[in-house]
């Protein structure tokens, strides 16, 4: 399992103050996006996010790192910025019924499984079905096979992931939070797929 244990700088996400680390209401150039993470416990959801948040070395970007809520802003090539507000969910079975409270209003859902665990892949499929039934209709969904560095223990083939994602109109990627492989690509690809709000 591998999140590295060094700690990022913490900026205290103050409640007080205007709505706006990103300067007021989001506009078409500066998106603010609620992203919910779903997946079995132990698949490395939070490791992926920590990798992503720590991997951005822009010292000017404001980062909020909590144990389960994180936010990070990325700049895209077309000079827009996307601020991801990442909501982690508890993956244990006993909390499954609570998930709708978290994905309500989310623009993005990232469903994570562990390529060495077929159970976690079935659980991922369960979440996809849930989201299709109860999530907002224009939610952007990504299917992520994590722990891609553990080739020798692989039990879910790349093709299975691709096929399932394709059938369900999702974006698919395999990542390794341990080696940071494909972590940034995951978030950049999500950012590209976001529907752009029409300017008011």
């Amino acid at each position, binding site marked *: 399992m591998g999140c590295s*244990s060094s700690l990022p700088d913490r900026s205290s996400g103050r409640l007080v103050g205007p709505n706006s680390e990103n300067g007021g209401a989001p506009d078409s150039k500066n998106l603010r996006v609620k992203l919910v993470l779903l997946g079995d416990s132990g698949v490395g959801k939070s*490791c992926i996010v920590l990798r992503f948040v720590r991997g951005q070395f822009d010292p000017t970007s404001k980062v909020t790192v909590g144990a389960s*809520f994180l936010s990070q802003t990325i700049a895209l090539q077309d000079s827009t910025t996307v601020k991801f507000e990442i909501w982690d969910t508890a993956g244990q079975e006993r909390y499954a019924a609570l998930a709708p409270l978290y994905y309500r209003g989310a623009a993005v859902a990232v469903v994570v499984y562990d390529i060495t665990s077929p159970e976690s892949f079935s659980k991922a499929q369960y979440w996809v079905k849930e989201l299709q039934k109860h999530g907002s209709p224009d939610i952007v969904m990504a299917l992520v096979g994590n722990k891609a560095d553990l080739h020798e223990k692989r039990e879910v083939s790349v093709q299975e992931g691709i096929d399932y994602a394709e059938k369900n109109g999702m974006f698919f990627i395999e990542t390794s939070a341990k080696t940071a492989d494909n972590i940034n690509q995951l978030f950049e690809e999500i950012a590209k797929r976001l529907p752009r709000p029409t300017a008011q």
Partner: protein
Amino acid sequence: MDANFYDFLDRMRNPASLDLVRSIKSFIVSISFYAANPENDAKRVQDFFSTMEAAIMEHPLWEAATAQEIDSAMEGLEKYVMTKLFSRTFSSSPEDAKMDLQISEKIQLLQAFLKPEHLDIPPLLCNEASWLLAEKELLKINAFKSPREKLLCIVNCCKVINNLLLNASMSENRVLAGADDFLPLLIFVTIKASSPLCHFADHSNLRTLLSANPPQLHSNLRFIQLYRRQAKLVSEAAYYFTNLVSTKSFLLDLNAKSLSMDEIVFEENMKAARQKNKLTPKEPLSASEAMKSSQDHKYQVPSEKMQDKETSGSNYPYMEAEAGDLTVRDVEILLSTYKDVVAKYTNLSRAVRRHPFSKTEIPVSSVEGTSDTLSQLEGTGAPSLPGG
């Protein structure tokens, strides 16, 4: 702590803000013309906040104000309005009180036997000192009347848990497991914090009072959801808020399958806890005791600090109490207080009738209908509206 609020009050004293003051007062009066209904009230309040935000942005007193300054004014406004409307809007329906009671009863049963391992909380995260700190933050929720401050109590509680997790990952090299670790801890802390038998390290009277007041989990959450300015219930605060909503929901639905515990053992524990609760009514910490000790020691219930003494009815100890706080032992005091109030009211009505000014009196029926309005106007402590 609340510089926003004092700044807001200062600006409202400026003659230039008279138009705003009038709008605020007339809003507070006007809402009492409608039957209390949480959804409708919330819609009116939220619409009013939006209207006022626009008015403040256009206002000469805030000319060239930064977004931050406008926001501070809005925070002040939210606190002012919601403090005035608190008794109307907080836990106002019987359903809310019922739900609070249901949760607090469930929690009380769980307190009797639930251990961290039943939620698979690893020993490494069993840090009593941190938990205590988190509990104290959560318990403060009932000391505040504004949605912002209540929400802040939740956020602060969650941040203590957050720090515990971050520290464990740093010093103990535990892999950060995010929400998988966070939610169970919040659930456990919520259960502990609601305990009437919760022992704090220092046995100060204030602590006893706080722990004697069940956090009214449901009512507090609903109040924040409905009345916190919508633009502010987002992002990190919304995340922590959602986690406490989850906690509430988890506790309500909790059954044998929700825990790492044998089903039969669970049922036996619940049964034993129910029996124990019947045998020993929560002795030393009933509402009446808490109120009495608050008087004996000239200690104020924290929430009383925030309101005008004249209108708080501090002579009537149950003004702050909720149905769920009461025990059979309170009946006696309630009855004597009731007799006292009725006697005073009867004498007062008699005096008013005899008094020559009684001709200008408003008919009794409308007095009843507007009693809220009148007390609210008095409560504002500022000049009344011209023309009523």
